[in-house]
């Protein structure tokens, strides 16, 4: 069976600047992989390339989900195929009501799957239930998407979306940054609830701490647009101890 995600020798540029310089990564169903790496090493760029953001041009290699190349798919098609990106910097949408946004997202997936659109009342109940678990109150749900949310609240809201969309592959870009200790626990619990033999996750973080909560199967170090080292979760401790000094990114 094809792996859930296979990244083959991926090269990508932003504008004319090459950022990703040959990434190879295979994630099997059910696995959690963590990516660490210095600032500017290309972690967010990789997450955008996976999600299909315009302007992030793949100049070589391939991205396959369940054996099918995603390169020709637009961002919305990838999302409906089960890809989810929790943004490092979630985007404010003034004037776009949170509830109608969440409903549009969930309905887009349901329509793709040939299911009926969600019942409005049941949806509100469902959102409330999941939101309560994540410490998101009704007032936040009523506001425009991310408008007036604190940094930590935005991160929780990303996980709420993830919980509602039940993605096959979740890419979490520094979801732990900006979270207080309690929120980190709440958000991690939310993520762990979605752990499932059929789903996989790619967790980008700077801190080993997160990986105590969301325990990864593999840890990779990205530097200079390439994965320089891979290992088990002990690699995260090594990074925490000695930084990235020992990682060779000259290549």
């Amino acid at each position, binding site marked *: 069976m094809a792996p859930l995600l296979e990244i083959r020798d991926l090269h990508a540029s932003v504008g004319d600047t090459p950022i990703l310089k040959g990434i190879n990564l295979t994630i099997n169903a059910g696995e959690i992989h963590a990516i660490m790496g210095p600032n500017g090493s290309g972690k967010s760029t990789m997450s955008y390339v996976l*999600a*299909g953001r315009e302007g992030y041009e793949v100049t070589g290699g391939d991205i396959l989900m369940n054996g099918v190349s995603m390169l020709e798919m637009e961002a*919305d098609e990838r*999302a409906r195929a089960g890809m989810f990106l929790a943004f490092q910097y*979630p985007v404010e949408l003034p*004037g776009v009501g949170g509830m109608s*946004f969440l409903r*549009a997202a969930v309905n887009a997936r349901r329509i793709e799957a040939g299911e009926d659109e969600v019942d409005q009342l049941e949806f509100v109940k469902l959102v409330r239930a999941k939101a309560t678990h994540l410490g998101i109150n009704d007032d936040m749900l009523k506001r425009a998407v991310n408008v007036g949310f604190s940094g930590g609240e935005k991160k929780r809201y990303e996980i709420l979306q993830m919980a509602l969309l039940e993605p096959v592959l979740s890419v979490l870009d520094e979801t732990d940054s900006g979270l207080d200790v309690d929120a980190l626990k709440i958000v991690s619990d939310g993520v762990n609830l979605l752990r499932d033999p059929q789903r996989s996750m790619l967790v980008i973080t700077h801190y080993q701490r997160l990986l105590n909560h969301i325990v990864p199967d593999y840890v990779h170090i990205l530097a200079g647009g390439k994965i320089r080292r891979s290992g088990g979760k002990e690699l995260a401790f090594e990074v925490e101890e000695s930084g990235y000094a020992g990682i060779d990114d000259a290549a």
Partner: protein
Amino acid sequence: MPASTMQPNLDQLAGLTGVRAGALLRWQATGWPDRRAEQWRFTRLSRVEKMDLRPAEMAAKQPAAVAASLPDNAVILSFSNGVLDMAGLAALPGGVTASLLSDNDAALAALAELVPAAHPISNLSLAAMTTGLHLDIAGTVEVPIILVFTGDDNGVSAHPVISVRLAHGASAVMAEWHQSSVGLSAPLMGIVVGDKGRLDYAKVQQESSASAHLAATGLKLGEGSVFEGFQISAGGQLARLETHIVLSGENADCTLSAIYLGRDKQHHDITTNMNHAKGHCLSNQIIRGVLDDSARGVFQGKVHVAPDAQKTDGQQMSRALLLSRKAEADAKPELEIYADDVLCAHGATVGELDDTQLFYLTSRGIDRKTARSMLITAFLDDAIDSITHPALADMLRPVSTAWMNATPNAGDL
């Protein structure tokens, strides 16, 4: 240009008297707006000048039905080719008295005072008036009065002239709905809201794609009165909605917001002239424009504060959203302030949809077209949310929704 070849052909107007005769003389002296006139710098009328037109003399044989979200309980006055169907007057609610301006030169003169005497199209419409209707309103009239303008003859120009006068303390809800296919639709409106009166007002311009719409509205607000107005310009090939407002008594409160929605080669012009003649008045204008294809949008907004109009609060904000590289928006906000103790602000921006916002939405599985319309709706809601009268809001919202849904190729930006 000699009067004989100038359009519309006004030969049928021989023998005018009174106010209309004066207006005809002024029109014949000036003709279409001078190309050098600053007020017409962004809106050239050459497309209209070339139309072969004569003022309409009769209603369409089969007045068109308007498929619109008009309030259920509304009283509708139907104009076809600019000619009023008198039968509608019978249904006017209590408190509203109708008469004809053709029989009342004094009311016509009062109306003419509400717009600048040098305004060419007002003069044309006064002279070529297809119907002149005067409504006197007293007391509280809750039933919305909707003026519906249809028309089927693209060889005619329609010049409905309507004056509305709210007595002291009177209140009413009114709307204009323009959806005709006449060559030129040039309504002239004059509205006076008496002291402590209130008028909730909406205007929808949805003319056919070959029509030109050149509207002039004069508005005078008395002491402590409230005017809450909203305009949508979405139809026509060329449209100018020009409003002259005088806040003539203290503590008057005027909201006049507008949105324009353009596609193809449409040209929309929203021009306002907000005149704070007395102090302690409030004026607020929220303007939003969305332009696709090669459409062009213009907002000219002048706020004038007279020397003794202290404690004036005059706000104006215009924002345009371009959906295509060929679309163009111009804004000319002007503040002319002669009093020293005022709070006035204006601003104008032109922008595009935000890539990051679009990516955020599409990354959640929402298709691009839906994502764009969610962002455009949010942009317009800023203005539409300012309408507080529920029936008028319900009438206006579907207009922008329909426009959005009709976008075949939602721009290249």
